[in-house]
């Protein structure tokens, strides 16, 4: 009989072996808590203004390490995901600019916005 642990591991293994996918489990949730917390803080308009006024200082205030701060300043979304960013919290950084989820999708795919939109629209045929 398959053990409970085997079931859990098998379930996670499916998501973990998907290309370009980063299962947001406990391991990732711990990876860069500070980055996600900084993103969450931007739900407050006053914090968005403070971030805009001094992005680097704001990142330091939330305890981001230098590498992560550089990713934020560069709006390197795929880099932030690799570094433990959760899309819903880093999206709040994007919203300050403002960028849409399509911009984030395009950059993560290494595509121009136009090409990424074409890719999305191509699903209409399927």
């Amino acid at each position, binding site marked *: 009989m398959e053990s409970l642990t085997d*079931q*859990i591991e*098998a*379930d*996670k*293994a*499916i*998501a973990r072996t*998907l*290309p*370009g*996918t*980063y*299962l*947001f*489990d*406990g391991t990732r*949730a711990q990876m860069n*808590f500070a980055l*996600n*917390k900084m*993103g*969450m803080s*931007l*739900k*407050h*308009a006053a914090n*968005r203004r403070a971030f805009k006024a001094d992005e680097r200082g704001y990142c330091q205030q939330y305890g981001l390490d230098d590498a992560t701060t550089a990713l934020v300043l560069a709006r390197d979304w*795929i880099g932030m*995901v690799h570094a433990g960013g*959760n*899309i*819903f*919290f880093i*999206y*709040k950084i994007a*919203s*300050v600019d*403002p960028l*849409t*989820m*399509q911009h*984030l*999708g395009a950059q*993560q*795919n*290494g595509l121009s916005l136009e090409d*990424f939109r074409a*890719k*999305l*629209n191509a*699903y*209409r045929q*399927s």
Partner: protein
Amino acid sequence: MAQLVGVMTTSHVPSIGVAMDTGLTFDPYWKPLFDGYGPAKDFVRDLAPDITIVVYNDHGLEIFLDRVPTFGVAAAPEYVSGDEGWGPRNIPAFKGDPAFSWHLIEHLVAQEFDLTMYQELQVDHGFTVPMSIAFGGRSGEIAAWPTRVVPINVNCIQYPLPQPRRCFKFGQAIRRAIDAYPGHERVMILGTGGMSHQLQGERAGFMQPAFDRMFLDQFAPNPQALIDLPLGTYMKEAGHEGAELIMWLVARGAMNADINEVYRHYHVSASLTAAGLGCYVNA
């Protein structure tokens, strides 16, 4: 007793809210989606629910990674649209029904669901967009919501998400609680989220209409097939964020074994999300 009069299920996407709030619903990009919502609005108007239970997930408005509940049921007198990072939606506040909510909470905890109970809660696009689709006019416009609401949130942001099987059982328990309510309220359940989409990683933009159509085909006649799929399979076939479809299973669990599909709409895509919608009544 109160009566479950029907279920509507629908995807929830921030940009659908933006399209409604900025008058873009007749825009060529959005028109096919919003045209498809018309019959659902008629369905909901005819149901005329006194209370609408909205099963949704929070995307970083009220829930951060410091404290993630699996299931939450709210019992506040009022809920307002919160600021997710791009300002709150300019829509009327939602009126709650604390007496009904507390009845639900007591009956769900007694059935061994380990809820988080809210007395204060703001709601995000996962809640407000489906409400606008269901109750608003062509462009989501509305002066006052014609229903009281109960927000029920389900963890879809941090693994482990609740299993599909657990979500279905949660719906069954909600139904028992509705049936036990000593009023004559008409209750609708709005199941939200999905369908296939992925927002994070190089796979962002992934959709899979074939899986979504299978899900829609099985939803009414054969939910067991959907409950038996592991979460990993949802993430594989519907995308890392497409696992939100577990919230449709909460709504399905609340219905009879036999149900009728009244209406279905499927549109690829609303931004990165394959947008599905279904209207169902007990047979």
